[in-house]
C-alpha cells in the first residue's frame, strides 16, 4: 500500500471535519449567546468604590489630599475637579475594619532566603532616587524613636519618662 494516498485521505477527512466542527461550534456558541443576552446600562462618569487597605498605609500614603471629608466627596465641585483626573482617587476612611477571622488567611509569607538579604541590601543602596511611598516597618510616632532612654526595662521613649516634669536649663 502506498503511503501518500492514505495520508492524503486522512488529511482530506481531517480538513473537512475541522470545517464542520468549527462551523458547528460557532453555531452552537451563537445559540447559547442568544439565550443569555441582556441589556447594558450606560455607566456613570464617576463611581464610588470601597477601599480596604492596611492601617499603616494610610499613615504613610494618605496625604492631606486624601483625607477629605465624606461630605466633600459627593459635591459636584469635587467631581468636576480636573485634578482628580489622571490619578489618585479621593479617599476617605470611615472605620477600622478588623478581620473577622485572621486565621482563614492563607499563609503566604515565605522566609526570604539568606542569600537574598545581600541582594536586598544592594537594591536598597540603588534606590536613593526613588522614594518608597510606603515604609513597612515604622508604626509608632517617629519622634518617639529619635530619643530613647535606656532603663532597667530596656529602651523606653523619652516622652514616657518625663511625666509631670518640665525641662530646666542649667
Amino acid at each position, binding site marked *: 500500500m502506498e503511503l501518500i*494516498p492514505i495520508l*492524503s485521505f486522512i*488529511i*482530506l477527512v*481531517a480538513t473537512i471535519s*475541522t*470545517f464542520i*466542527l*468549527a462551523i458547528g*461550534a460557532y453555531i*452552537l*456558541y451563537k445559540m*447559547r449567546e442568544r439565550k*443569555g443576552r*441582556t441589556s447594558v446600562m*450606560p455607566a*456613570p*462618569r*464617576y*463611581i*464610588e*468604590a*470601597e*477601599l*480596604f*487597605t*492596611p*492601617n*499603616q498605609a494610610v499613615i504613610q500614603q494618605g496625604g492631606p489630599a486624601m483625607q477629605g471629608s465624606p461630605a466633600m*466627596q459627593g459635591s459636584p465641585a469635587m467631581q468636576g475637579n480636573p485634578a482628580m*483626573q*489622571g*490619578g489618585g*482617587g*479621593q*479617599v476617605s476612611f*470611615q*472605620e477600622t475594619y*478588623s*478581620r473577622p*477571622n*485572621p486565621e*482563614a*488567611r*492563607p499563609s*503566604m*509569607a515565605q*522566609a*526570604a532566603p539568606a542569600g*537574598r538579604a545581600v*541582594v*536586598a541590601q544592594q*537594591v536598597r543602596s*540603588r*534606590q536613593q532616587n*526613588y522614594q*518608597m511611598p510606603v515604609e*513597612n*516597618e515604622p*508604626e509608632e510616632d517617629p519622634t518617639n524613636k529619635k530619643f530613647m532612654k535606656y532603663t532597667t526595662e530596656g529602651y523606653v521613649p523619652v516622652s514616657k519618662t518625663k511625666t509631670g516634669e518640665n525641662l530646666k536649663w542649667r
Partner: protein
Amino acid sequence: MRKNKEILRGKIILDNFEKPHEDTGRGNKLMATIFSTGIVSLLLIITIAVTLPITGLSYSNLFVFSSIVSLVIFLFVLLFRYFSTLIMAYLYITKYTVENKSDFFPFVSIIVPVYNEGKVLSNSITSLLDLDYPNYEIIIVNDGSTDNTKEVGQSLVGIHKGRLEMVRVSMINKPNGGKSKALNAGIQYSKAEFVLCMDGDSQLSANTLRAGIKHFTDPTIGAVAGNVKVLNRKKMLTDLQALEYVEGLNMPRSAQSLIKLVNIIPGPVGIFRKKAIQDAGWYSSDTFAEDADLTLNIMAAGWKIYYEQNAISYTEAPETLNQLLKQRYRWTRGILQSILKHKRHLFNPTLNFGNSLVLWSMFYEALIWPVMNIFANLFFIVVALVYGMSNLLAFWWAGIALLDLMTALYCVAVEKEDIRLVPYAFIYRLIFILMIDITKAMATIEEFLGIEMNWGKLERIGNG
C-alpha cells in the same frame, strides 16, 4: 507584620473614564458598504464575462489558472511571513542576549483586576508575593464579583512578607463595569510611576518585574509586554494553545520588539509607564480588546513598546472547544474594533508611520491571513474531491508541517519550553489554526455586519 489585622475601610471616588456614547449612524454606513461592495462585485463579474471570450479561455480554465496564481501568491506570502518573523525574532534575541541593561528598581503598583476569580485569586497573590523585586505594592480591584472573590480578597489585604521586602496588599471593591474600568480604578489609586497590569487568574514568574522594569531606563519606552504561557497543560487542546502562544504570539512579539513596536501588550502581563497610559487616554471599554486598544493608543501617542521574554505570566487557557472559540471570537472582534478606531492612522502613514505599520500588520493577521488560509484549504478539498488530485494534499501538509516543526523547535529552544510541544506541530496548522481561522472569519463577518456581542467569562478551574 504588626497591626496586620487592622484593615481600614474607606470610600474612594473614581473617574470611570466613560466616554459619551456617540451614534455614528452605523446602520446607514453598513448599508452603504454593502451596496457599494455589491456594485463593485457585479462590475467585476460583467468585466470577466465580457473579456473572457477575447482571451480564449473557458470558465474551467479560468478557475484552474486563477487557483494556481492564488496558490502561488499564498505560498509566497506564507514563506515571507514565516522567514521575516523568524529572522527578526532571531535578531531580537541576539540583541537581547548581548545587551546589558543596568538594574532599575522604581516603586511599582501591581494591579490585579478580578471578577469571580475566588478560586484562583490566592494563587495569583502568592505568586506576586514571591517576586524577586524589592519595591512594589499589590492592588486588587474586585469588579463587582458575585462569588466569594470579595471575601478572599479581603482576607488577603494587609502587609505581607515578600521575597525581599514587606509588600502592602490593598483592595478596591467597585460595581461591575468590566476589566478596563477595574484596571483604571487601580491605576488611579496607585501613586507609583510604573504599574503592572495583569489578570486575576494569572501567576507571574519571580523574575517578571526585575526583567521587565529595566527597559524603562530608556525614556522612550512607554510599556513593556510580557510573555504569556499556558498554565493548565497535559490536555491536547491546552497543549496546542501552549504551542500557539510560543510560536504564534511570542515569536511575532519578539520580531516586533526589534523595532520596539509590539502590537498587543497581553492582558495577563504588561508593565506601563503611568504617563504613557495617561497620554493614551486610559483603558477604554468601547472595544472587546482593551489591551490592543490601549497598545495602539500608546503607540499613537509616540511611545515605544518592548517585549520582555523573561517577564512571564502563567495563565489558564480554555479547556473546551466552545470556550476557546468564544475567546478567539472576542479577541478577533476586539482587535478589529481597535483597528477601526484607529483607521485615521491606517490610511495616513504620515501621522505616525510606526503605528500605521503595526495597524496594517494587525489587519493582515486578523483578516487577510485567516481568509487566505481558509480559501487555500477549501481549494485543496475541491481539487481532491472534484479533480481527484488528492495526493496534492499530502505534499501541501508535509510542506506546512515542516515549516511549523522548524519554527516550533526554534521557539521551544529559545524559550526553554517543554519539548513535548514540538510534535503538535504536525496537526497545529492543519486542524488547530484552521479552526481558529474559521472562527476569526465568522467574527470578522459579524463585526462588519454590526451584530451585537457580549463579554464571555472563562470558567476557572483553579489549578496550578
